[in-house]
């Protein structure tokens, strides 16, 4: 187990380094710079600004400095937003995204898994057709449609909930629903698939023939194995929810990481782009590792090695 985790961590670090290098050189090769503006800056002013941020040095030298800073956890100042370091930005906005992501994931699991189980147990009944049709619609309905729709209904028509901001508990409901419902649909379908696979096994038929009760079959024998596809999806889902909530954060004006990622890319704020890319990559690496561990714990046929 220890060896497995250690090996995966080293692999993860190498992946992070590779992602950092690719991102750095891709950003460096993109036309434009963080300092280009609609109103031209005089060349002598531009030179001063570039020197301040180290852009007067060759790309290779900048990369070495950047990596050594990143290894110490320093990603430098934002090249666009005055008085803000990338670390400050992450420290300020990550908890917001984490809170929104966790709530959305909680909602997705709480809704998606039971719906998937019921649909599998009651296969080919209305308890299967209705939730699965709804979940298919949920998957097809992107968050940029669902978000404004919820805002319109609960914010504008009924005036029940605020449609933008992050000021109190009531501000969390609509964005968490928008994000959570989308993933709930995925979890429902994955759980249904997993459970059906288990319920159609020969030994389940044998157990039924021997008179084992249906609830024992479902809860005691099939649930663990039936949840494996959903659990496999849990890691990417959490990383995706936290890192992929750009649209939801923009629609509901939430001061999380997603907004910064969009701003970083549009402003060509190189330091910010690098810092956020590494953070998201690290999240995905760690989540996948955790999922692997849980999978092995649930399915002894898989070995750590």
């Amino acid at each position, binding site marked *: 187990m220890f060896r497995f985790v250690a090996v995966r961590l080293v692999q993860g670090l190498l992946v992070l380094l590779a992602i950092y290098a690719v991102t750095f050189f891709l950003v460096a090769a*993109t*036309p*434009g*710079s*963080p300092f*280009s*503006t*609609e*109103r*031209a*800056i*005089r*060349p*002598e*002013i*531009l030179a*001063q*600004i570039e020197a*301040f941020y180290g852009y007067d040095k060759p790309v290779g030298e900048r990369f070495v400095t950047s990596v050594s800073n990143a290894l110490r956890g320093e990603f430098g*100042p934002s090249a666009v*937003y*005055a*008085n*803000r370091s990338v670390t400050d*930005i992450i420290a*300020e*906005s990550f908890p917001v995204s984490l809170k929104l992501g966790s709530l959305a994931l909680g909602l997705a699991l*709480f*809704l998606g898994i*039971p719906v998937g*189980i*019921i649909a599998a147990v009651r296969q080919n009944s209305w308890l299967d057709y209705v939730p699965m049709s709804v979940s298919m619609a949920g998957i097809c309905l992107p968050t940029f449609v669902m978000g*404004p729709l919820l*805002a*319109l209904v*609960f*914010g*504008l028509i009924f*005036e*029940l*909930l*605020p*449609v*933008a*901001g*992050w*000021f109190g*508990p*009531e501000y969390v*409901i609509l964005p968490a629903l928008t994000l959570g419902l989308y993933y709930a649909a995925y979890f429902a379908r994955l759980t249904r698939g997993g459970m059906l696979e288990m319920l159609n096994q020969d030994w389940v038929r044998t157990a039924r023939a021997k008179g084992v009760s249906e609830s024992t079959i479902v809860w005691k024998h099939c649930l663990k194995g039936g949840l494996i596809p959903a659990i496999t999806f849990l890691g990417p889902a959490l990383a995706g929810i936290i890192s992929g909530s750009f649209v939801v954060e*923009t*629609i509901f*004006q939430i*001061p999380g990481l997603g*907004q*910064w990622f969009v*701003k970083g890319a*549009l*402003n*060509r704020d190189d330091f910010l782009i690098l810092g956020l890319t590494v953070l998201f990559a690290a999240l995905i690496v760690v989540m996948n590792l955790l999922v692997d561990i849980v999978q092995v714990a649930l399915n002894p046929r898989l070995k750590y090695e």
Partner: protein
Amino acid sequence: MNEQHAAVTSNLSRARHPILRAFAILSLITSAGLLAACGSGERFTDEAARDGILLFGNGSEPKGLDPHLVTGVPENKIISALLEGLIAYHPTDDLQPEPGMAESWESNDDFSQWTFHLRDARWSNGDPVRASDFVYSWERMLTPELGAEYAEMLYILKGGEAFHQGRTDDFSTVGVKALDDRTLQVTLEGPAPYFLNMLKHYSWFPVNPRVVEAHGGMADRQSGWSTLENYVGNGPFVLDDWVTNQIIKVRKSPTYWDRDTVKLNGVNFYPVENVTTEETMFRGGRLHLTNTVTPDKIPVFLEKMPGEMMIEPYMGSYFYRINVTRKPFDDVRVRKALAYSIDKKLLVDKVTKGGQIPATGFVPPGLKGYETSDAAEFQPELARRLLAEAGYPGGRGFPDVEILINTNEAHRKIAEAMQAMWRTELGVEIGIYNQEWKVYLDSQSSLDYDLVRAGWIADYAYPSTFLDIFTTGNGNNDTGWSNPRYDALIARARTAATEEQRMAILQQAEAVLMEDMPIIPIYWYTRTYLKSPLIEGWHPKVLDNHPLKYVSLKAPPMPDAPPPAE
């Protein structure tokens, strides 16, 4: 317990299956949350109006609040609440000077030397505002190491350019001097009767020297003086809270010299970039003002809420730059043909829909003493003739060229309309391609384009803010065009003896620009936004500078107040 709660609880007790029970609990929590969120039922905007807090949609997150380091409009709106220059914004007329830190002023006969008499004013930390604070601030702006992007604005000061470009490091050679604590003398490179208008721009605003020195010094780009904890201003409001991407709160300053005039207790600036979200917030009673409106919705709002949909003139030009270094645009007849074949009225009526004015020249109307050019009117017959003379009769043989736009639906729609008009009127086929903002800027400045969409908003109300950009070598020219006659006229305007002569020379310069047509004027801007009827003291302004100290909010009736007696 209300009926809804009773029903949910009853369902819960009947739910024996653990999953169903979990569902029932979830529904209970959700309903409780929704009911709790309902609150008193009073709209946020009404509640805020009663508290004297203006809820202001400000577009995007400010890149900073240091007036010497920022360049944007969202920053300007907040900085103008926190700081005040020598001359302030007039509440109704952008062309009028309003006393700010300067109580009075006078100039010599040719407007090249100005003396400002400062009032007894204080910074928010209690320091007196001194004439030397302005000297320090302008020295900071012109210090090359700071890298202030708007430093060029101060080149009008005698010796300002030489100091900024490092030809001297002696700031006493620059034309600004504190004669005593309350008197500031300014000497300019030449006559500038419009200098007072320039002073309204935030690049001329003062910063508190003691505070700046305490947090990194004059030339530090990452100076901590302008953060939430350290900000010291001299304006009508003080910085109270700043949560990134969320809110900036300013509250009435207790130390401001004219605090009795300030009616608002505060302003909450919301950096809402998404136009749909902003509009939903306004309609849901969460904003008193939006930053903008989606063009497609303007006709709907005009019909449904005419008292709230604002369309006001704005001193800016929307135009296309032409790369005159490329064929076929090196031929002035082709450039003119493209410019004359655009039916701008149709374009603003059917595409932009925001009441924009079809542009017949480059400098927008509304500048005192300046006659608007009519050189770029819609003349399709002449356009076809010119194109034929250039060797492309009916568009035959016209090479493949493209319009470059930055990624934005509004720009695409305009480009498509232009494309269609050129196809119809001239028979030429012109493509469209878009690039992300920074890439687009790079392509434009390196002349890597055929035609590119552009916009220019006045920094101050005077024709030179528009015309100066097309002089040879100007970093904003970006067309490859150069005309010595134009450069000479712009230079001559700077030293004209009288205001009438200066305006006449500038008009001649614009005529030269329109004769060579390195640009295609399309429309003059308007500001379109939604405004609550609760707002008072907010007037249309061509530079969109609304001094918040004159703005107030009408208190709405209390939600549970009895109806008025008949």
